[in-house]
């Protein structure tokens, strides 16, 4: 069953456009949603949450159309935009009291369990929490109302390496029994290398690729060679950089001839992102 099914989302702004965004997330998996700043990650997430009006396209969550079952589905979604930046001078306790009333499946026991687990003090104000603690508080809220789909926009940005690792462990633990699915956007690609099952890569409002992580990485090759060799492959490269030893460039695996004498390695997510972003620059 698909936890999230996005079909052909289009949205045009004055200076930016979401073009035919489609991707699917299987239930029980973690999908990393990567892209540079301004690539369209938050816009996509806001379209999923029905916060902006798309020009065309459909969002299905847990098999139901979001536009038709918004209220019902929002009960099943845990959503967090970065850290919490609302009602920051209120105590956790006060905020939770207000929030829990909205959810029919709210479970106090689960909530208290996660408060303890995340070492959150209910009497603290939001503003007194560290970034990591704020993300954990968002998670505690989402999990206490029994969210089946967690949509997290940049949950790990601004966290120290230890907290990030801790959070990623929690994510993996959550999806373990196959009930919960997570879509999280980030530009910290190393997080995804640790825990994502699927990768969806968006660049300039378009989905470049959405697939299983290993397949995603395997579909590209990072080439390096001398300046003279560059001319052989220049046309096929997504983009390249020239350095004193020659060049390095990214190529789609299907465009690469393994018989050539160029040195080819499997790129990491960061390299793929960088070379795609460079492609945009080269075309400008």
């Amino acid at each position, binding site marked *: 069953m698909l936890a999230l099914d996005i079909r052909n989302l289009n949205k045009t702004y004055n200076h930016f456009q979401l073009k035919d965004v489609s991707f699917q997330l299987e239930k029980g998996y973690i999908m990393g949603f990567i892209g540079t700043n301004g690539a369209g990650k938050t816009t996509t997430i806001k379209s999923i949450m029905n916060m*902006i009006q798309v020009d065309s396209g459909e969002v299905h969550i847990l098999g139901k159309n979001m536009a038709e079952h918004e*209220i019902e589905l*929002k009960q099943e979604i845990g959503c967090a935009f970065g850290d919490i930046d609302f*009602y*920051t001078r209120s105590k956790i306790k*006060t905020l939770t009291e*207000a929030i829990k009333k909205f959810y029919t499946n709210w479970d106090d026991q689960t909530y208290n369990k996660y408060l303890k687990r995340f070492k959150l003090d209910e009497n603290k104000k939001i503003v007194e929490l560290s970034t990591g603690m704020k993300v954990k508080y968002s998670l505690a809220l989402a999990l206490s109302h029994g969210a089946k789909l967690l949509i997290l926009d940049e949950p790990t940005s601004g966290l120290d390496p230890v907290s990030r690792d801790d959070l990623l462990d929690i994510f993996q633990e959550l999806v373990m029994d196959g009930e919960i699915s997570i879509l999280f956007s980030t530009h910290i690609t190393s997080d995804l290398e640790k825990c994502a099952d699927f990768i969806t890569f968006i660049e300039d409002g378009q989905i470049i690729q959405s697939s299983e992580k290993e397949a995603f990485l395997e579909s590209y090759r990072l080439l390096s060679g001398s300046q003279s060799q560059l001319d052989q492959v220049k046309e096929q490269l997504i983009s390249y950089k020239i350095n004193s030893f020659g060049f390095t460039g990214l190529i789609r695996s299907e465009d690469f001839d393994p018989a050539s004498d160029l040195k080819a390695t499997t790129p990491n997510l960061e390299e793929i992102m960088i070379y795609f972003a460079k492609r945009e620059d080269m075309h400008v």
Partner: protein
Amino acid sequence: MYNLVIKDIKLGIHPTFFVMPFLTGALMLIPGWIYFLVLLYFCWITIPNTFGGFKAQNDLLFTAMMPVTKKDMVKARVSVIVILELLHIVIAMLFGILNLNLYPHFVYHFFAPHMAFWGLCFVMLAIFNLVLFPMYYKTAYKYGGAVSTAIAAAMLFAGIAQWIGVENSAVADAFNGAGAHNTALQISILAAGIAIFIVFTMIAYRMAVKRFLKVEI
């Protein structure tokens, strides 16, 4: 909807603004004042402060993430403001009765706080709402223009009404003179004011919803 109203009351609006009706209501004890001012304090102080609070607390994003419809978000907010308006007007009315009993022989130059006057106050708030909500819900966070225009409209109405009340003898008579003791006249003016308040606020709510549906959060 109910949850949203509770959320605004418990989280969004500072408790001071629920004490304000008593403070501004007590201004009704000033003898011979222009009593429209009492309710205008609500428009001048409570409205910009609460709307500023919502903006500063990022209430829009917070609410949008809850399982609620955009229509209910508007309905709840309008209801909360109407609750505050009713609190102000009802408490001011009570102080008005006290005023009439404290100064039984006072000669009122401006409108005396009889029932008909409160009808005019309902009309003033009706106009205030009609301007405020549709303008505010173009963005659902920018409140400066909406509040200033709504205040201007309400004050203009109050100014003109009071001017007529002083200048026109028939109106002066209906509100302060012999008409003050004509219960049927008093009740009908009050009822008409309440009816206008309800109709204008409903229209404001509908226009606000229509605009808010187009707002991108």
